[in-house]
């Protein structure tokens, strides 16, 4: 019920779009929602069987690598404050490099393989995971850690029984951002040279002057993003079920 208004706005927007598209009547420049939907249906096999798996593969590989790399660096920084002092500023500064502008270089390094896409995805998803996990690991308060110490806890006890559960909500916040970015990363990677994938397909349809088919894979990508996001949210709810109790 709460979202009736949103729903109505979306429907209104679609209708407006449909009407303007029909008035302009240049499907190549502005396809109508209906045309896009029909094209999506016609292309369903190509999109879902040929291109989606490829894109999903780079997203999943990119995310996995990001998570491994990101949490490893976050843990390393949280365990050693001189590492932290050295690396953290670099991490922050590195975000100022428009890494996406480097994407074409990856093609040179990795060729037109999946790795150039994975590299783009890792480069843009790795930062939110690292920073959030690190912030989470350092969000513990001294009082609590000292309470552990007075119980005779070792550093390892504190890390596993306090820091990690403490960091989990932050890790999930980072992951939620990363998931969205990974879709964008894979799409960008696929623009730059690929033989398959939704981003590639969208671009290719542009060269075929097929406006509706340009949008169709973008819609699929959007749903991939939403689905991944929902998955993470569910996982989060299950792992942090205590949070719903407050």
């Amino acid at each position: 019920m709460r979202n009736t208004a949103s729903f109505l706005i979306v429907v209104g927007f679609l209708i407006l779009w449909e009407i303007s598209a029909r008035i302009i009547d240049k499907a190549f420049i502005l396809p109508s929602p209906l045309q896009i939907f029909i094209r999506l249906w016609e292309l369903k096999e190509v999109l879902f069987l040929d291109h989606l798996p490829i894109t999903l593969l780079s997203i999943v590989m990119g995310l996995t690598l990001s998570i491994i790399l990101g949490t490893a660096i976050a843990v390393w920084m949280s365990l050693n404050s001189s590492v932290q002092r050295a690396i953290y500023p670099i991490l922050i500064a590195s975000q100022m490099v428009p890494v996406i502008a480097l994407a074409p270089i990856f093609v040179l390094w990795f060729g037109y393989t999946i790795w150039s896409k994975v590299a783009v995805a890792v480069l843009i998803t790795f930062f939110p995971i690292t920073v959030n996990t690190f912030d989470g690991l350092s969000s513990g308060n001294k009082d609590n850690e000292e309470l552990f110490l007075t119980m005779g806890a070792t550093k390892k006890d504190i890390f596993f029984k306090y820091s990690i559960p403490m960091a989990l909500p932050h890790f999930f916040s980072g992951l939620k951002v990363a998931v969205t970015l990974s879709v964008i990363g894979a799409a960008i990677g696929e623009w730059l040279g690929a033989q398959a994938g939704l981003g590639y397909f969208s671009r290719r349809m542009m060269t075929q002057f097929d406006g509706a088919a340009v949008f169709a894979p973008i819609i699929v990508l959007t749903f991939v993003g939403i689905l991944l996001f929902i998955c993470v949210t569910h996982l989060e709810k299950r792992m942090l079920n205590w949070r719903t109790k407050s």
Partner: protein
Amino acid sequence: KNEDTEKVSIMLDWYPNAVHSFLYVAEEKGYFEEEGIELDIQFPANPTDPINLAAAGKVTMGITYQPDVIIAKTEQDIAVKSVGVLVQSPLNHVGFLNDTGIKSPKDFEGKTIGFTGIPLNEAMVQTMMETDGADFNSVTMVDVGFELSSSIVSEKADAAVGMYINHEFPMLEYEGYQPGHLDPTDFGVPSFYELLVVTSDDTWANEQENIEAFWRAARKAFDDMEANPDEALATLLKHQDKANFPLIEEVEKESLSILLPKMKENGKFGHQDAEVWEVTADWMTKAGLLTKEANLEGIFVNMEE
């Protein structure tokens, strides 16, 4: 300067090179100004942008490839038309480095071939291979955008289609590589117009006079260029954007000598023949590029002399 000059824009097919000399000559000699137009030359960020933006009306004209115009018009009902040819026969070859050991289209089997993202190139390779009795399915085609030469030099692709015999090959040789090439017309691909100028039907309806003015100036410049290629080249080099698109004099000189005869094959610069359009469309239908019957209705107009 002139109060009532009309703005006309043209998007090149590639970064500027010898083919575009006449534009700079006309500019230099003030022919456009005489015709009352002010020309804005744009370079594409994407090999497919010239036809796309011309069709969308974002530029007055775009320099593009003949089969693309047929695909746009036939497959998607996009109202575009060609208003003149620049290069009347193919320059497009499949290029590779000699170390790859490629000798004929059969050797493409199992290889990776780069192209600019224009689907027609895939069909060309397919036709070449089928003519040579090879299996096209074993080839991986990758969209490399503008990086045709660099993709084979950096060994990201074994060969690339869309390289020009007058430009990329001399350039690679100049850089010290040993490029080899195969001519598609030797392997079943018909000869068609390599480069032509398109506009959208809407633009044609609204700005026909400007386009005609453009062509008058262009023709005049082409005549000058034909009469004195060295001067034209000097103009091109003078106008080159050194930082962005450095040109090499030797390469462009050789390029121009290859180009000049091809730009006036039937004696008339810019003139188009309905027959060439039909031959091209036939091949495209055979090659599977067209799923519908070719729509050549109003696909080109010839400027009055």
